[in-house]
């Protein structure tokens, strides 16, 4: 049963159209959202979070439409984007102190656990962190309020291989606790390692939204790795 339903999401820009995007995210599943730069991943995620207004289509979380239930829904989801850092000159502890006021479910234990795991120092400011550590800070904020759905826009970009592995292990741990993890990436090995489902977008259209096993069955040639399959699909899409 899908905990998040995206139906016929369409957004037209002068030079790009997100065209009838539909997919679901299952509870306790890791869904990799894959596509090359400019394919529409971030626009889709922003539209899911009501940051971008689609021309048509609907998004629902937990069976409730985002429109009209935004406040309630946002309490149960976590969002992180790899690149953006908020309040670069404020101490992390001050940012956290404000953030936790908005969530009844803020979990001090999880917060402490991930602070330690990510080796973050809350006396530092975001501008004192490397890009990788900034990703971890955003994740820490998302993970500390017991979100049932995590929507992560390129969370592994900028992370070293060890941190990336650590993060993918955390995704698996969260999934085992029933959390739905939806993350966009263009690093196919991340999908290969931990995703249960794959949503593949190309030029603003969903090419495929199925389980990883079905994706491989439907698209991969014999002996072909997932990365090779994706590259072949992208090449044929570019030539079309």
């Amino acid at each position, binding site marked *: 049963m899908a905990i998040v339903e995206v139906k016929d999401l369409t957004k037209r820009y002068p030079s790009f159209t997100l065209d009838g995007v539909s997919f679901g995210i299952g509870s306790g599943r890791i869904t990799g959202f894959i596509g090359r730069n400019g394919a529409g991943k971030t626009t889709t995620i922003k539209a899911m979070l009501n940051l971008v207004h689609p021309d048509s289509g609907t998004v629902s979380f937990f069976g409730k439409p985002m429109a009209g239930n935004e406040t309630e829904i946002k309490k149960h989801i976590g969002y992180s984007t790899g690149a953006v850092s908020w*309040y670069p000159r404020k101490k992390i502890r001050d940012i956290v102190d404000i953030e936790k006021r908005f969530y009844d479910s803020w979990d001090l234990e999880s917060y402490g656990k991930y602070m330690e795991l990510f080796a973050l120092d809350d006396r530092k400011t975001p501008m004192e962190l490397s890009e990788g550590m900034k990703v971890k800070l955003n994740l820490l904020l998302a993970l500390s309020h017991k979100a049932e759905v995590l929507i992560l826009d390129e969370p592994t970009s900028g992370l070293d291989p060890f941190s990336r592995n650590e993060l993918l292990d955390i995704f698996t741990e969260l999934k085992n606790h029933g959390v739905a993890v939806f993350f966009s990436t263009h690093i196919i090995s991340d999908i290969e390692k931990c995703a249960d489902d794959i949503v593949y977008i190309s030029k603003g259209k969903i090419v495929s939204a199925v389980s990883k096993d079905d994706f491989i069955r439907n698209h991969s040639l014999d002996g072909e790795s997932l990365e090779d399959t994706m590259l072949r699909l992208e090449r044929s899409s570019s030539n079309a």
Partner: protein
Amino acid sequence: MRNILIKEFRLSASPLSFFFILFGLMFFIPGYPILLGAFFVTLGLFYSFQATRETNDILYSALLPIAKRDVVKGKYAFVCSVEGISFLLMAAVVIVRMTLLKDSPVYRNNALMNANLFALGGALLIFGLFNLIFLSGFFKTAYKIGRPFVIYVIVVLFTVTAFEALHHFPGLGALNAFGTDSMTLQLLMLLAGALLCVIMTVLSCGTACSRFEKLDL
């Protein structure tokens, strides 16, 4: 709303917004266009909007579990709080000038506007103009601060000039009343300023909320 206001004060605000509240003390300066004190308070608020843009505050706020219009209302609550505090400071100065210093020669021999209840009404009008022009202008894009602020500055300079000139016109000398002279007129002018400020702020907040709802971030 309480939490979003705390966020505004602790994360979004520029320290200059608080420091510039002290410009309310300009109501003590003789021979100076005192309403510029109210303008400087809004200049301090402008720095917070500059910080808002530089720190991705709007996107951060929009992702919090609050309605999008609450992001706007939080900004208005912050601005009105700062304006309110500076108004109290100006009011305290005006009370001192209307009582203890009402016969002070430096204030009596002053070609410019006197600090009385009419001046306080003028300060409220300037706050209202800031809320109407700058705030609702900012929420057209949630990042462009220059254009709405320039328009506001032009309007406010005309307003200050007009207020400074008014009491020199025949029949309007009472606007420059000292102490408790022409008290009814002074009170009416203060109430008119307060009413205009409230109307402009409410109208502006409604416009800003609907503009922000339609924005793609």
